[in-house]
């Protein structure tokens, strides 16, 4: 592999230079290359066969099929001779297909489901979760005497004196989460409660107090059926019977709540619902059609913030582009003067905000703006408590000011570049013809500048439209909008709202609704791109 050519170099006939289809055949591959290829292909295929087996085990036949076909295609591409373009494109295309193209389609699918923290699995999992989580004290069951004991190894155990329906006494013991086993009692107190058994000794009261939480949380199962009733002890001396709060009837596919007998049926929307509209949580994932989009339009708690956020997103992006462009251009005009002393140093200093990592800038400004400790309030405003980031109007001004700081150096750099490419004789002749400085700017510099800079302004708009980091790291989207039924704040833009609906901790995650909003952003970005494409000549350059 060296760049030097062996043997004589030929001047190729002129016609040949343009057509290099001959290159598509490649030469004779080396042995080493072939070995590397076979080993890599083998490893990949083995991993994919493994994945297919797991997918089949999970009864996910669709994805098993997709992985199988993809594996075959990759092997086919690399094992046959020729077809070089596919060999060079395949690695990048695979990653792009999965993590940039497929995920867009998948977003589209999720937008039509109710996927979220309350609906994150299939129906069987939801039924299990309902039966396991919803547990309640069973009314009418007797209360049994209980003693907290330790076994020979010092492990916490519970000794229960049970009485069956016939009145016969049984003494059983179990640790937390285990099934009660019969033991031989060795000591009883005056009320007939077993206080010790073979291998088990009573725990003194003050030691129980120290491990109180473990004691009241312990579950002692009456049989090894996981749905069975179990005992819990609220006071370390009595055992109370608990059981599932819900009773599942597989025949009717219904849940009956034990305490009030209310019946819940499959609503078709991924939950069990009673006749009066009460839903049981968790539910499961189902396709819900246009429900998420419908909610965005009909629920005022979602619609109003959505409209407000959309307007603010456009305002934020447009004002950011204009303010940075105007400041950047002004400075470029000012400092585009080779005779100005120290011009170089001014430029270095002014580029620094752009060089400083954006996420850190957001953190630093967040600190500067802090209401109680921030430099701006404490020093510049002499201790005033101005709510820079917590007032619903002021926060927008604060964000725009930070974005001006972040963005003007870029505009300064590109407009300086564009100004310097304007021929100087053009300006000179304008001066000789008596054009004023303002006329030179408005009639010559600006039009020429905009030709080259306009596409960058559109790119800058598209970037700011989705400038998640700035908003989320600076203000967190806050202050929170309490009128909304979703987690959204007054300075949120669309993308940060999507993030908060999907990933905010504490409140329920709603992937379906978040994806529906992503689709909306896709359409907006797509429209903007379409128009910017039509204006620029990029497409014509592709040949």
């Amino acid at each position, binding site marked *: 592999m060296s760049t030097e050519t062996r043997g004589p170099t030929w001047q190729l006939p002129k016609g040949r230079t343009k057509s*290099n289809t001959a290159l598509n055949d490649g030469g004779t591959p080396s042995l080493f290359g072939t070995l590397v290829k076979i080993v890599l292909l083998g490893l990949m295929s083995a991993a994919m066969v493994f994945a297919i087996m797991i997918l089949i085990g999970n009864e996910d036949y669709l994805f098993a099929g997709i992985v199988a076909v993809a594996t075959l295609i990759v092997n086919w591409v690399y094992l046959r001779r020729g077809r070089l373009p596919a060999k060079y494109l395949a690695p990048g295309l695979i990653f792009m297909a*999965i993590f940039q193209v497929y*995920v867009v389609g998948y977003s589209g699918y999720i937008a039509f489901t109710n996927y979220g923290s309350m609906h994150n699995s299939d129906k069987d999992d939801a039924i299990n979760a309902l039966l396991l989580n919803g547990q309640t004290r069973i009314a009418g069951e007797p209360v049994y005497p209980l003693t907290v004991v330790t076994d020979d190894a010092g492990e916490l155990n519970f000794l229960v004196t049970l009485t069956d329906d016939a009145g016969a006494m049984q003494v059983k013991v179990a640790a937390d989460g285990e099934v009660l086993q019969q033991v031989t009692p060795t000591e009883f107190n005056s009320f007939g409660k077993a206080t010790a058994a073979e291998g088990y000794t009573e725990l003194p009261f003050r030691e129980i107090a120290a491990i109180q939480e473990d004691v009241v949380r312990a579950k002692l199962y009456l049989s090894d059926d996981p749905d069975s009733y179990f005992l819990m002890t609220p006071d370390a001396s009595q055992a109370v019977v608990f059981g599932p709060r819900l009773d599942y009837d597989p025949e009717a596919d219904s849940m009956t709540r034990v305490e009030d007998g209310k019946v819940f049926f499959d609503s078709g929307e991924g939950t069990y619902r009673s006749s009066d509209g009460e839903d049981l949580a968790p539910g499961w994932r189902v396709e819900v059609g246009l429900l998420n989009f419908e909610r965005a339009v009909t629920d005022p708690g979602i619609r109003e913030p959505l409209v407000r956020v959309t307007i603010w997103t456009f305002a934020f992006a447009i004002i950011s582009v204009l303010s940075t462009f105007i400041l950047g251009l002004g*400075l470029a005009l000012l400092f585009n003067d080779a005779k100005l002393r120290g011009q170089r140093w001014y430029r270095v200093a002014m580029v620094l905000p752009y060089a400083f990592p954006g996420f850190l800038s957001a953190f630093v400004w967040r600190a500067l703006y802090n209401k*109680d400790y921030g430099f701006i309030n404490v020093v510049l405003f002499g201790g005033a408590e101005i709510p820079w980031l917590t007032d619903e109007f002021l926060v927008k001004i604060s964000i725009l000011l930070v974005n001006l700081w972040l963005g003007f150096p870029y505009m300064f750099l590109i407009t300086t570049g564009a100004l310097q490419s304007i021929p100087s004789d053009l300006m000179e002749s304008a001066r000789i013809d008596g054009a004023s400085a303002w006329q030179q700017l408005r009639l010559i510099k600006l039009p020429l500048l905009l030709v080259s800079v306009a596409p960058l302004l559109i790119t800058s708009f598209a970037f700011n439209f989705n400038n998640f980091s700035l908003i989320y790291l600076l203000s967190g989207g806050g202050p929170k909008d309490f009128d909304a039924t979703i987690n959204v704040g007054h300075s949120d833009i669309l993308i940060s709202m999507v993030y908060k609906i999907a990933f905010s901790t504490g409140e329920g995650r709603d*992937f379906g609704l978040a994806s529906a909003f992503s689709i909306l952003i896709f359409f907006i970005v797509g429209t903007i791109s379409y128009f910017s494409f039509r204006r620029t000549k990029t497409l014509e350059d592709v040949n």
Partner: protein
Amino acid sequence: MDELSKEELKAYKEAKSLLTDERRLSFGGWLRKKGWKHLVGWVMVVYSIFPIVYVISGSFANADQFTSTLFSSFTTQNYVDLFEDPYRPFANWFVNTLFISGTAAIGSVFLSALAAYAFSRLRFTGRRAGLLTLILVQMFPQLLALVAIYALLVNIGNVFPFLGIGSQLALIMVYLGGALGANTYLMYGFFNTIPKELDEAAKIDGATHTQIFYGIILRLAAPILAVIGLLAFIGTSSDFVLANIILTKPESKTLAVGLYMYVSDQFGQRWTIFAAGAVLAAIPIVALFLYLQKYIVSGLTGGAVKG
């Protein structure tokens, strides 16, 4: 210029000075002509560097007196504390950022170079459509699909746990997914500037296509590939959102996600330590940036500003 009358000479000098600004200025004239530019320059310098000076000052301040004045106290304790907090392992974050962004940058340059080679040197059906698709895909940032990326990684994690949520490899794969869209078109342009006669000569001498790719194209494009790689490094090391949803354990986080833990907590308590972390995190990136500044400007404008 001989034989000029006094008046003509005066008029000539005046005209010349008007055109070339070579007049000697009085102080008032200087202020009007130049001085205000320096004034604006100084205001902009203060505006530009103040937040940065503020962090540097904060990183050397005692925890209780960081707001009032700049550089009012001096201690290096913050830098020591930064590395001694077991719940916020700064050293891990630093190494993670280098590893994740470095691997993603190298990988994405390699994948894009492969694709750009195919587009630049090979002729095949769908080539034009492929280039158009790349430009189109480039318009849609990955973070728009962040919900689906999360859900996809949950599913992948069910099959290969080491590639699920919480895995740094998974994050690198997601970054590689954005590689083709971001860099291929740029590289395609650079590869086109390498004379095709070179590969044809090599081809006639019996070089295989891999030898041409590694031996000629990659060698000749190496400087520009390095620049694209470093720019990709700067970009991924500043990513917050994907890293934040994918990396869950404190010790596997990157600087952007990890330092957020300092800021999202009660402000004030750890600000000075955060400032120390910010200074250390920023130094390599700012240095890289200033070093690459001319490429960044020409690279960013390369597609649009045609000379």
